[in-house]
């Protein structure tokens, strides 16, 4: 009797164990193979567009992106327009010296893709997956989509609001090798990376582009390895044939393509054998033996990278960014990295209580360090657990910067 009770449990446990193992297995290559019927069943239930509208407002997507039907954020909260004005010398600060100082330090987040006509271009499931686990989609753009605190259901609602609900598709019908040749001759590699295949030559695009449009277009150009996940075959063809007809504000130029050429290119994007780049985990450097002071960490990390969001506005002497009052759907954490005492004063945690940013996390790593390391995993596209990578949506800290922070913490955080 005992055995009969135990056996199904054991079988279930073993099955669960192997199933979990299968989920974690990382394929080394992706081969779409020849005739592929890519008419897919919807991966995601369709969300609610009314709730999606509310979610977009809650998570303040309009601070970076243009969204149809949503008013842009106020100028002082609009990251992209503020950065653009600084970069272009149009921003007027109370102290003109500050404008010059900011201009020297603001290098990115002056451009972000608009969310116009998302439904005409992208699969709903791709939008949901990307919102849940943003990765380095646009290799020429320093800032990335931040990993927000939204639920999968909210992500579906946002996709629904953006019109990205359809997964239906036609059979890929072009000639992939002709598509590859067309991509080379049309200069797609001037802007786009296509990782996992032989590098596209960076020949100039066959149509004239202004320097400004080319620069913005190149930065916004996605890595084409993700195209097959993001777009259906038929949407790819429509997009290639008439980018501006699909999305009026796109920087993608209208490359003269016949319907056959567009199908060939789309076919290559869908079917090309892509090597999945081996995931090289971030390697920490050993802690420094020399003394590391707060002044050095502040100059090289806190003040340089973190202060813009994590400083009390009246400490920032006009140098504050969004401040420390929460935003993008996050509650105010009240972390003040503008002073030594402020760093020590910690954050308001999920329970609403103050806790130290140096307290040990799950594996004993101080939480500050966990967040800095998590940002690297986010960039690699790895699943990341509850720790949100910092700096949010920005390039991760270098190994040397992280080494500096780690050394400072291990030395007892000397002033």
């Amino acid at each position, binding site marked *: 009797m005992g055995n009969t009770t135990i056996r199904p449990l054991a079988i279930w446990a073993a099955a669960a164990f192997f199933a979990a193992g299968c989920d974690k297995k990382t394929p080394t290559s992706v081969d779409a193979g020849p005739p592929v019927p890519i008419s897919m069943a919807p991966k995601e239930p369709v969300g609610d567009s009314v709730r999606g509208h509310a979610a977009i407002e809650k998570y303040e997507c309009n601070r970076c992106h243009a969204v149809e039907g949503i008013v842009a954020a106020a100028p002082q909260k609009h990251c992209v327009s503020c950065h653009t004005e600084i970069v272009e010398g149009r921003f007027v600060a109370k102290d003109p010296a500050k404008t010059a100082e900011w201009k020297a330090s603001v290098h990115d987040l002056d451009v972000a893709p608009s969310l116009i006509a998302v439904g005409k271009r992208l699969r709903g499931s791709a939008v949901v997956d990307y919102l849940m686990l943003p990765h380095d989609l646009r290799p020429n753009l320093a800032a990335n989509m931040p990993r927000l605190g939204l639920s999968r259901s909210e992500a579906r609602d946002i996709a629904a609001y953006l019109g990205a609900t359809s997964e239906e598709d036609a059979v890929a019908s072009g000639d992939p090798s002709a598509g590859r040749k067309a991509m080379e001759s049309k200069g797609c590699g001037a802007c786009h990376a296509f990782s996992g295949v032989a590098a596209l030559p960076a020949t100039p695009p066959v149509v004239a582009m202004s320097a400004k449009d080319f620069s913005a277009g190149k930065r916004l150009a996605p890595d084409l390895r993700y195209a097959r996940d993001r777009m259906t075959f038929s949407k790819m063809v429509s997009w290639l044939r008439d980018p501006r007809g699909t999305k009026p504000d796109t920087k993608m130029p209208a490359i003269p393509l016949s319907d056959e050429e567009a199908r060939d290119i789309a076919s290559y994007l869908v079917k090309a054998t892509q090597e999945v780049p081996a995931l090289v985990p971030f390697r920490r450097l050993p802690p420094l033996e020399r003394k590391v002071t707060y002044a050095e960490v502040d100059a090289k990390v806190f003040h340089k990278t973190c202060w813009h969001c994590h400083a009390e506005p009246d400490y920032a*002497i*006009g140098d504050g960014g969004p401040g420390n009052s929460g935003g993008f759907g996050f509650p105010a954490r009240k972390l003040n990295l503008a002073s030594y005492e402020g760093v*020590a004063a910690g954050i308001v945690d999920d329970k609403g209580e103050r806790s*130290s940013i140096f*307290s040990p996390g799950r594996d004993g790593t101080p939480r500050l360090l966990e967040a800095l390391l998590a940002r690297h995993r986010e960039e690699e596209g790895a699943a990341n657990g509850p720790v949100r990578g910092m700096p949010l949506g920005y390039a991760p800290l270098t190994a040397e910067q992280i080494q500096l922070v780690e050394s400072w913490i291990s030395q*007892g955080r000397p*002033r």
Partner: protein
Amino acid sequence: MKKALFAVAAAAAVLSAGAPRDAAACGGALWEERVFVPKPSPPKLVAQAEKDLEGGNPRKALANASSAYGDLAKAEPGADNLKNRALRISALAVVRSKGELKVAGQKEATPQERLAWAAKKLEALSAKAPDNPTVEGDLGEGLAAAGRDLDAYGHLAKLADKDLLGTAEGYSALSRLQFAAGLTSKSAKSLARCEAMASDRAVCGLAKAPEKKVAEKAKAEDAKKGTAKPGTKFDPAVFAGDLKI
């Protein structure tokens, strides 16, 4: 005639006093182009005062804070955050000078009275920001300096337990209080934190003073009871009645 000579001499003296050290560009004229150096703005003065305080110079910190706001002696925390910061600096400057520094506009007082004033201001600031460990740490330090050990201990120990105490001075005060309460291993830990955090270890030297005082007292008591033995460790329980905790 004498009056006239005096007048000329006086005028010459006045003019020569105003003459430039380097001859002016306009042919040795008796006036100079005085460079107007604007007074730094209150935000810059307050920020500088904070740096001075962190750098272990309470006198300069107080001077800069007072230069930003001249009425700090009678000020109460309010809606002006910058002024609140200046008030915090002035109170901590008094605390870290052991009551030696006088805030402009303050009436004559003993160091102990000044420390009591500082503790009161820090209490008022803490009441305005109840969930701010920085302010609470300052309060603990101020209360300890004013001799309100029990209150100080409550604040400092709570923050230290959560690793939220952000100043070497706070750990120094806590170490002293813990030692006085007989919590010697905790006191040593706090002292170690103080030493790790401090840019100037002298800050933590304060923590050693009571140790010596208490040890001397213990030795004297032991001698009185005739129980003194070389190398005997101090038993704080013996002196529990003398402690304020």
